[in-house]
């Protein structure tokens, strides 16, 4: 397994503070609109589907499947960027970690895992089930 890359800290804003506080507790929450019922990604205060500001943070299952991925071979420490489709609906950008990159495939089931960043809250990544 290649050595882990240093992960830059995410920028925390007033819109996403709750998300990152949950991440510090190891909880993966997904923004979900209480007006139209849909979950979205990336997280924002205004629902991208219906325009409502009644967006709530709901505990997510942490389960998903790989929509697509690419291993950055050119990097000093190769890493796998990916989109994972969450069980809750939306597809999010992430990294695939703790795995053999040569064994990855689209459609594979993955679970969320939080990884430390350089001086910020941990970020959600995924590893194959």
């Amino acid at each position: 397994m290649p050595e882990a890359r240093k992960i830059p800290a995410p920028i925390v804003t007033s819109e996403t503070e709750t998300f990152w506080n949950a991440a510090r507790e190891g909880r993966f929450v997904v923004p979900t609109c209480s007006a139209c019922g849909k979950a979205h990604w990336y997280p924002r205060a205004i629902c991208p589907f219906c325009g409502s500001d009644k967006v709530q943070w709901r505990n997510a299952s942490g389960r998903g499947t790989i929509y697509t991925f690419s291993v950055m071979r050119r990097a000093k420490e190769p890493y796998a960027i990916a989109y994972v489709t969450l069980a809750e609906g939306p597809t999010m950008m992430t990294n695939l970690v703790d795995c053999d990159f040569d064994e990855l495939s689209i459609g594979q089931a993955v679970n969320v895992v939080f990884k430390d960043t350089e001086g910020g809250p941990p970020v959600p990544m995924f590893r194959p089930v």
Partner: protein
Amino acid sequence: MTIKGKAYIAGAFEHPTRHAPDKTVAQLHAEVALGALADAGLAREDIDGFFCAGDAPGPGPATMAEYLNLTKLRHVDSTELGGTSYVALVGHAAAAIALGKCNVALITLAGRPRSEGQATGTTPRLRDPNQPEAAFEFPYGMTTANGYAMCAMRHRHQYGTTSEQLAWIKVAASHHAQHNPNAMLPDVVTVADVVNSPVIADPLHRLDCCVISDGGGALIVVRPEVAKSLRRPPVKIIGAGETVKHLSGGTFDLTISGASRSGPVAFDEAGVTPPDIKYVSIYDSFTITVLMQIEDLGFCDKGAGGKFVADGNLISGVGKLPFNTDGGGLCNNHPANRGGMTKIIEAVRQLRGEAHPAVQVKNCNLALAQGTGMQLGTRHCSATLIMERE
């Protein structure tokens, strides 16, 4: 209201440099502006509309307007759509001319990422911390290359597109580049050369990626009365479309580009269909960029792009859809990391009958330029431009 026939490209100039360590970006903008004016047979005093994008030094059009000492401006537009900006700006210039806002529009592009040593495609860059998605992309090592690579990986999964099929796009570009004395990569390559080059981001290889070059280009767009008074073969603008495609709150299909929306708008306005087009310039930041746009413009069915581009079908004189006969971004140049301008310039050469004789398309009366700006793997701008020889 339409722009069809309301404006003409009267001047076009591509800077011959591919490496300009001894010139400034402003100087390159000025050199291409003067080159396009000379090509058109017009003077700086004739310019009353100035169009530029994010590569122009300073915010908006003011800095370059001053450097060039443009004193007659009554219409300006610095719409920033990334590398496809110039494809859209030709449409904007035609619209402004149709509305009587200006008569002679200058559009410029220039930059020198090669001299500045930018690792353009492989280094994660935080462009603007106020972008709300930054926290959900930057930590994951999002770069230009791996974003496009994720599109290619998904396309392969959904449609069975192979690395060899993608390689044919580079092979076709190299067949054209061998005739371009200014091309950065003038050597003809094979499918094996491409798939055996080092992997940058799976499944894209080094030779699936465009070059990094300095340089620039400029265009002069004028009203019909002005075009008729000039000596150069007039190129009529007959259709333009533009759009943004993004991740739609996490519900997206990464195999589809914005060309699926900007294309039909441009075709409708022009009143032509894909089989009518004799030559295409297709933005080629990566081979996958070309394949997806060709599908989305309707030159083949969605998902059939791999078969369509294979076996030399994009090579002028060989295949059915000659593309990027200057060698494109894959082999010729990619000034300022923005390929939209050079796409239009080669289409103008084809319509004027001034492409290199080895790649000139016979009876080329209808051409299309298609650009994708920013990141196909997240959010991008798309612009389509259709032009006709008089």
